[in-house]
């Protein structure tokens, strides 16, 4: 369980990135943190494995105060994947890259090779096992970075902008993959601007604005509110926008899911045909 209690944080440059933030994330939750650039999303997730320590307030991971544990200790349970994969890739092969974290955490050798293969298959990069990570495309490097963290199987997985540079197929795979991790009882936290992706995943949404949480709740509630969205500078998913404008037809306005939308429209068409035939 993650407990963030009244956390404030200011960077040495004087930028006030977090202002009295409190949030509790239970085990096995799927959370998307959204908000405009500079809202404090990345600063917030960096508090979770102790890279940044709160200036005021406290962060507890399973009851452990992050101020009293090292980044390495916390990272064993909180796997943080940074936005830019180029900030961490350094090995000669993808295989070595993934093994790096496992070695740091003292996994035995046979376990390492097992976990490496598992992570390679999971992210669809097994064919690059012996390739240099620097030769891969941007999207592939991103998946390697994700694999390096997933390999040690942390209880909580935090990913900064997972969908950047991924094509539709890979995004769809990522979505299924996050859901799968989630059903296995892992806590998944993503930071993203990709509203369509969030609408598909349907997680708990936390909206940030100028270092504060301005709204949170199910994706269906948050991503259908015009008022909240405009304050946090996000564009609503297209389905939600469409249903907002179709509201006068007597359709519900809180729809973000394609299949739900399909049923509602089919229903409407059927009813109108029925009317005509009368």
């Amino acid at each position: 369980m993650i407990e963030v209690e009244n956390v404030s944080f200011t960077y040495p440059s004087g930028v006030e990135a977090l202002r009295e933030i409190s949030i509790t994330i239970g085990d096995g939750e799927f959370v998307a943190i959204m908000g405009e650039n500079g809202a404090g999303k990345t600063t917030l997730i960096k508090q979770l494995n102790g890279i940044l320590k709160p200036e005021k307030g406290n962060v507890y991971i399973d009851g452990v105060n992050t101020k009293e544990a090292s980044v390495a200790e916390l990272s064993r349970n909180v796997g943080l994947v940074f936005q830019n994969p180029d900030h961490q890739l350094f090995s000669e092969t993808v295989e070595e890259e993934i093994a790096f974290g496992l070695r740091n955490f003292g996994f035995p050798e046979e376990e390492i090779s097992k976990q490496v293969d598992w992570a390679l298959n999971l992210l669809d990069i097994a064919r690059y096992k012996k390739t240099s990570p620097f030769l891969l495309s941007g999207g592939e490097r991103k998946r390697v970075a994700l694999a390096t963290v997933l390999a040690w199987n942390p209880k909580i997985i935090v990913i900064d902008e997972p969908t950047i540079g991924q094509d539709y197929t890979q995004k769809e795979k990522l979505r299924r993959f996050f859901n799968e991790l989630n059903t296995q009882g892992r806590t998944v936290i993503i930071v993203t601007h990709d509203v369509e992706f969030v609408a598909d995943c349907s997680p708990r949404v936390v909206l940030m604005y100028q270092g504060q949480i301005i709204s949170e709740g199910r994706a269906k509630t948050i991503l259908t509110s015009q008022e909240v969205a405009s304050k946090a500078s996000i564009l609503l998913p297209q389905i939600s926008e469409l249903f907002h404008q179709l509201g006068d037809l007597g359709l519900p306005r809180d729809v973000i899911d394609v299949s739900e939308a399909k049923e509602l429209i089919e229903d409407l068409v059927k009813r109108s045909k029925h009317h005509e035939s009368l």
Partner: protein
Amino acid sequence: MKVFEGLKFKRVSSPIHRLDPRTKFIVSCVIFAQAFLFTEFLYLIILFVAQIPLVLLARVHKQWTRSLRGSLILTLLIFFTNLIVGVVSNDFQLTSDALTYSTSMSLRFVVLMTSFSIFFLTTSPDDLGLALEQSHVPYEFCFAFTTAVRFVPVLAREAQTIMDAQKSRGLELEKGGFMKRIRNYVPILIPLIVSSIRRSLELAEAMETRAFGAKKRRTSLYALKITREDILTLILCLVLLITTVYVRLYIPIPEVTIPIPRL
């Protein structure tokens, strides 16, 4: 990383900022020379104190103190190395002379640090490039130089992010013996170098799309002008330099020593 703060230009308007970069460079060199002419405690302390009004005048005291704090470890290292050598060469006796000498040496470092801080904090990379250009340095070199200076803070920030990313993968920089600790930096240096090379290639492409080097002779919109203040400052510097060289050669400086604190 704090040391870099002392070299990051901040755009404010002050009499020091308005001076010609060439003038400021000469002032810095004169202070530099001063610090090397004298080892006497008294003079170095005067030199140090004399720089403080300049820092305040340029309104960069915040960055300056931050860079001083950043270089504290190096200052202490200089102090203790000199002190230990002084004590060892004097039959393991702590003398007031040794204490004074090591304080002077640390002060000398602080003075040098300050003079370069003032220069870099008050001179924009653009002005610096312009000064080089107008001193007839080929444009390609000027450009390379200003770009390098401009990217120092970017690189510092990037190094920090990389360190955070690797720590999140369980890397413990302070773990292990001496060799292991050095090897711990490999996962930080490689991404730093690779991303710098990547960035420079991107920069080169971006420059090429904007026709870098299309014309041999470039004209610039802004031209540096030596003003009356510049000439005054330069004369002052010259007078100071001549006087101090004279003092150095012919006039003994009164000795001031730091007494050993009684324990």
